[in-house]
């Protein structure tokens, strides 16, 4: 479990990193926290000619509260920073909760949001969160910057639309309606593992009816996704056992779960529906001020 040989470039600015990537003609890889990349190198699943280390790019490590009530997050922000950020807890409590499920302390101290999004594991929390929260991702390349909607960024399991000489730099989260209710549930066999499935819901209660509903799931498809039919099943009426059941059914109908050693597609489909139900109940309880009952 030793990596194959590579050369090492320590970048100190975005421009330097992009130049180094371009100079290696697609044979270089960015290394951020290294928590996903280094295992792949040690398993010899990857053999890049060069690693471009972005840990020295200070300008990519920030969490800024924006005037509109949203957040801008630098790609090098560590998981631990998001987990403990008061701005995240206040503006996007669903994200704060999701971070509690990302790996273990030692990994959270190194792993970065940019790394997690670029790695695009189907069962990773951050890709699901940027999908749920309609984030805009800023990417720098040799030709300058471009902006991508989160929904357009992921392109299948472990795949994104990033070009080999592009660097993800910033994640912008537009504001959520305040106050709002939220719910997040996931299941993994062991604490800190990638989840077998997870569900997240954000909504508001407008005159007793569910509104502004966002519902996303992960672990049950190549990429995390919002389930429009499930959102529609909830909007415009009070959340009830019936609407919850309808939303869960819509999710089970929409997803195409993978099979692996830890769970069959049938089980995952069942599981994600159950998690969706729990997430909706929590979100509704919070939105209607009955959060005491929410887990």
């Amino acid at each position, binding site marked *: *479990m*030793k990596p194959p040989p590579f050369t090492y470039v320590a970048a100190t600015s975005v421009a330097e990193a992009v130049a180094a990537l371009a100079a290696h003609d697609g044979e270089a890889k960015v290394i951020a926290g290294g928590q996903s990349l280094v295992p792949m190198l040690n398993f010899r699943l990857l053999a890049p000619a060069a690693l471009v280390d972005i840990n020295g790019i200070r300008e990519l490590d920030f969490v800024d509260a924006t005037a509109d009530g949203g957040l801008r997050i630098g790609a090098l922000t560590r998981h631990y920073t998001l987990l403990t950020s008061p701005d995240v807890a206040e503006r996007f409590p669903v994200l704060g909760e999701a971070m509690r499920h990302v790996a273990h302390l030692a990994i959270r101290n190194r792993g970065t949001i940019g790394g997690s999004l670029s790695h695009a594991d189907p069962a990773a929390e951050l890709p699901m969160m940027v999908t749920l929260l309609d984030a805009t991702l800023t990417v720098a390349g040799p030709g300058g910057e471009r902006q991508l909607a989160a929904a357009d960024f992921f392109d299948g399991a472990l795949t994104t639309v990033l070009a080999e000489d592009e660097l993800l730099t910033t994640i912008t989260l537009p504001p959520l309606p305040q106050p709002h209710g939220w719910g997040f549930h996931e299941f993994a*066999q062991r*604490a*800190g593992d990638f989840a077998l499935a997870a569900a997240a819901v954000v909504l508001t209660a407008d005159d007793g009816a569910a509104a502004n509903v966002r519902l996303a799931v992960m672990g049950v498809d190549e990429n995390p996704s919002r389930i429009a039919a499930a959102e529609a099943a909830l909007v415009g009426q009070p959340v009830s056992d019936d609407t919850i059941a309808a939303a869960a059914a819509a999710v089970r109908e929409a997803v195409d779960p993978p099979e692996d*050693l*830890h769970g*069959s597609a049938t*089980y995952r489909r069942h599981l994600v529906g*159950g998690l969706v139900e729990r997430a909706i109940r929590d979100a509704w309880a919070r939105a209607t001020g009955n959060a005491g009952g929410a887990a």
Partner: protein
Amino acid sequence: MDNLPEDLPADLNLMEMRPKIIGARVQRVEDPRLLTGTGQYTADIKLPNMAHLAFRRSEMAHATIDNIDVSAALAVPGVIAVYTAEDFYGQITPPRAESKTEGFHSTPILPLADGKVRHVGEVVVAVVAESRYIAEDAAEHIEIDFTPLPVIADPREAVKNEVLLHDDAGTNVLVDRTFGRGEVDDAFSQAAHIVGGDFRTTRKTASPIEARAAVCEWDRGRRTLTLWSATQVPGVIRDTIGDVFGLSGSHVRVIAPDVGGGFGCKTCLYPEEMVACAAAIKLGQPVKWVSDRMEDLVGTNQAFDEYVHAELAVDAEGHILGLRADVVGDSGAYSIYPWTAALEPVQVISFLPGPYRMPAYAARTRAVATPKTPLGAYRGIGRPTATFVMERLVDLAARAAGIDPVEMRRRNLVQPHEFPYRTGSGLVWDRVGFIESLDAVTDSIGYDDLRAEQLKMREAGRKVGLGVVCYAELGGIGSRIAVAPGMPINTGVETANIRIDATGAITANFGTASNGQGLETTLAQVVAEELGCRVEDVEIRHGDTSLMAHGSGSYASRSAVLAGGAATVSAREVRANVLKVAAMIMEVAESDIDMVGSRIYVPGTDREMTLKQVAHTYYQEMGRLPKEVREEVPLESTRSFDPYLGTAACASHAALVEVDPVTWGVKILKYAAAEDCGRIINPDVADGQMRGGIAQGVGVALLEEIIHDEDGQILTASLVDYVLPSAVEVPIMDVMHVESENPDNGTGFRGLGEGGIIGAPAAIANAIADALDIDIREIPITPEKLFRQTGN
């Protein structure tokens, strides 16, 4: 005697006033070293000019090797040598573990696959290079032409011998044994209830934090081989390596330095150790191999993996009448050295009757070769499977007879007046706390109240279940009982060498080897108590074959009993000699002096000497003592201890679990275990052994499984897929020690090290079955399986 009042009555029995060292919560003396990173593990050993070894392992489960092209690997800069099987012809005589077990067939342990491969991960080519990085780069450049052979991965198919793994064995069934007593058919025909069916325990691996490692140095001038190995059995390795390379034992030294866990998987001779030695001898340069986790998951001997058909017959009151079982064990590709393929599957039927009265028993077990990593030893060996099956049967029978499961066990446990009790398989339980441990555990969880509470929780829709289990094991086994009859080594004896040197320091040498379980502390406690010194005065040395003539190491819950026994007899002899010498120096009668805390004194007077002063006089002051004293009264003793038989140890475990009907995840709400390990040397160490074993049992029950596909490919090749429990999954537990009546084996110690893992899977399985009103036949019990089993 700082802590005794000065005005002691002269006739006071000082033995009774002595501070007790055995039984005290002495802090582990090895911990400061291990916890501050100043321990030395095999991987820490760096020698001048040391080369590094990596292997090219088989990607095929069963195939002939038609050609190996190593030229590209040899061309990689920094590569020193590349070896295939032929390179060791004439240098290595592959060992074979023989056995007189009926129907036994041995297999060789090869340094490298020769002509054919028999499992994925088998070592085929060895690369020696200036660094491990280079060695791994080069290994990738080796071209091997394989012709696939048919793969029969399921041992129940392999018994048909349609495809042979070892042509010279002539069969895949390496062991076929039957045990029994009584009229089993009669028992079943009289039964009010017969329960049972097919049970399955899947393959596991021990996964110590420190994987295996070896560093070998060959001194050309002295023709002496030194092998540092992360092993539990340095003595066994020394004896075998001597034979493998045709060297006398005085020219082979095997050192097990600090070892980071073993749990049984480090009790075998492995191919990599032979290759490291062979390469060091060929090159005249030290060679190091450190297993990485991927290698560990395919190259370290694995465990469990049995198919058990078992049935239990009981009468209308739930009394057990008889038991029958048929076990097929998946032995993997080779019969391990020195334990043979008999080890795991034979233990299953040896221990299946458990701590219960068993009038009639009939069992058959087969060890079947399949193209998988060999099956070896893992904590508990066979007994976790035996206990899982038997305790499921007892719960099933209780349910069929309409009896509470705890009451069912009380009715059938061997009662105090029935000891010694010969079990259906021929093992003998001496007086041990079967009932006492069941009482302790049911009291601790408040069994009756908890049942009432469970009913309420279930009425509220919660899926909560309670499982209680009992088991018995045999520990501290002497020379009367061989793991396999005719096995190449004697596991029934250990030796201690204790000496006081010219500085007055006490060194105690043993043939054991610690792999983290606290032996340096517990053996020092035994020596200190028996000799009359303080724990910190004793230097424990073991894990080095240059210390002892013979010693087989640490495994099978044996070290406390056997090495502790040897320490006892040896320390008593040294003490007697110290007192004899001191009496002569102090010119008093031997019977008038005592030694406590390394001070020799005449009670009731102020006359005393330190051990250091006695040693100085004895060794250094010429003319002070008659020459006969130095010639005949050594301040040193080498004594062996053989408990001849073994002694029973037992425990009861209880688990309260809740199953989430959405995720089908299992949460352990409460866990309690009470065990009888006889006289306790150190309660903290005993607790730690139990807790660690139970943690592993949680993994066995809920998470861990080595999975192969039908082509023999391993699908769980990293710790992402082989799921070990982490601290979060391990419950808070209540661990209790009961002492019934200490065994008459010289020390009162019983074996303890394996117990936790034996009871936990069964307790958890029974609790889940109770929670969901289902039968559990297979471990691990995963969410997926529960989802399917509950009709989804």
